[in-house]
């Protein structure tokens, strides 16, 4: 009963909240702009670091941006664009929906407690004083080893045979990729 009430409450909150709000962003690295959210797609141009853009969509590590000034619209990698400081950071609602009810609830409560970086006001009020459930520094240092849980963990281990099926199913192929030197 309680659970139902809670889910109705959260659902209504999620529905009331705008599903997609355009967000202001700044290009932090000069980036190629693609017409779709993948590298294989056509390049429609390039956008310079420092350009202010509107972020209109988000999809698996890509963000769709629009710049009136540069007259460009397309997709860039999400690390190439940062939310502009003045704009509130809104997490993609559709992404949290897809991660299920609990995840949605978690991200909502985080937003409520100024979990994400935001304007100055909420940053200063967001200084956390409450501890985190499990794995605070003190808990890490003082916890008693739990060997029962450890045995349980090992039971979930995969195998070569399983991994072969899993990779095939996910379209994953092992490829040769040379190391990148740390010296540059």
């Amino acid at each position, binding site marked *: 009963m309680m659970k139902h009430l809670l889910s109705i409450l959260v659902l209504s909150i999620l529905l009331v909240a705008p599903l997609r709000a355009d967000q202001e962003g700044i290009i932090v*690295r000069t980036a190629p702009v693609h017409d779709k959210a993948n*590298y*294989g797609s056509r390049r429609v141009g390039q956008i310079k670091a420092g350009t202010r853009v509107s972020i209109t969509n988000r999809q*698996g*590590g890509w963000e769709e941006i629009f710049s009136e000034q540069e007259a460009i619209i397309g997709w860039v*990698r*999400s*690390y190439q664009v940062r*939310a502009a400081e003045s704009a509130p950071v809104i997490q993609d609602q559709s*992404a949290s929906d*897809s*991660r*299920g009810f609990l*995840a949605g609830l978690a*991200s909502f409560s985080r937003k409520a407690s*100024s*979990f*994400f*970086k935001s304007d100055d006001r909420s*940053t200063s009020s*967001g*200084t*956390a004083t*409450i501890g*985190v*459930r*499990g*794995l*605070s*520094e003190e*808990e*890490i*240092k003082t*916890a*008693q*080893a*739990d*060997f029962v*849980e*450890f045995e*349980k*963990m090992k039971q*979930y*281990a*995969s*195998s*070569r045979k399983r*991994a072969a099926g*899993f*990779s095939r199913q*996910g*379209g*994953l*192929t092992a*490829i040769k*990729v040379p*190391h*990148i030197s*740390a010296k*540059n």
Partner: protein
Amino acid sequence: MRILLQITLMIALVSGPILTTPSFALSFDDLKKDLKEAKKKLKKSADKGKEQLDKARGKLTEEEEIEVGGNLVSGLLGAAPLVDDARLQQYVNDVGFWVASQSKRKHLPWSFAVIDSDGINAFAAPGGYVVITLGLYNLLENEAQLAAVLAHEIAHVVRKHHLKALQKTMQREFWTDLGVKAVGDEQKREKLQQLINSGVQLYATGLDRKHEYDADLRGVVLAARSGYDPYALLDVLTTIDSINPQSSELTVMMKTHPPTAGRLDQLSRKMDGKLDSYASGQLNAGRFRQVASKP
């Protein structure tokens, strides 16, 4: 006991040639020569032993490494237990095992887990153990991002970063007897326990910062080798960077890792242009969502 053995050995060496010479007519000079040679032999083997000891300093046998790691991860599980979701645990193991299979140490008993903590973090332990908190897992958007986080941790294990940190904290003498195959040695047990105790502290103080950057870089290469989009780690770091660094969920991670913005900057600079041809790797967002939205 050791001295007794040495004396016996010396007598055997000295008397050896006498007994084997049929005439027993051995000159004093010959005896001296034999003695000298025996001494030389002894010194040579002692030197060799010392050399092996130096080589073994800070190193453990793989068995010892797995034992220490198992104890360390049990400690983490004592602080935060497994998330009670078999499907999720299996999935994380599937992704982790596949990525680890592309590493140099694929033969380790790789084992992965999601632990029930809101804290945003992931940990690795020597021997092939990796845990990720539910707090971090919930921030991820697709399988490539999960693979990226696990690959970073796998890189710590492959490169033995924890052992390198322990090597720094323990004195030189400490490592005698370790890294050598000898079972049932009580003194060795005690030492392994000491290593475990110091290892736990590492999770609160963090590894060498340069090893974090190293794991970032090795991790993205490992993810690319596994067929994933290597840029996914940058996406995860971008998400973490968007979180208020003062939120309690990030306390331990911020204390034990270099600033996220710095990691983003270093990694994207080093990756720039080098991994573009692999960026069409899989994201597998659909499979990731299916697991997350369990009934």
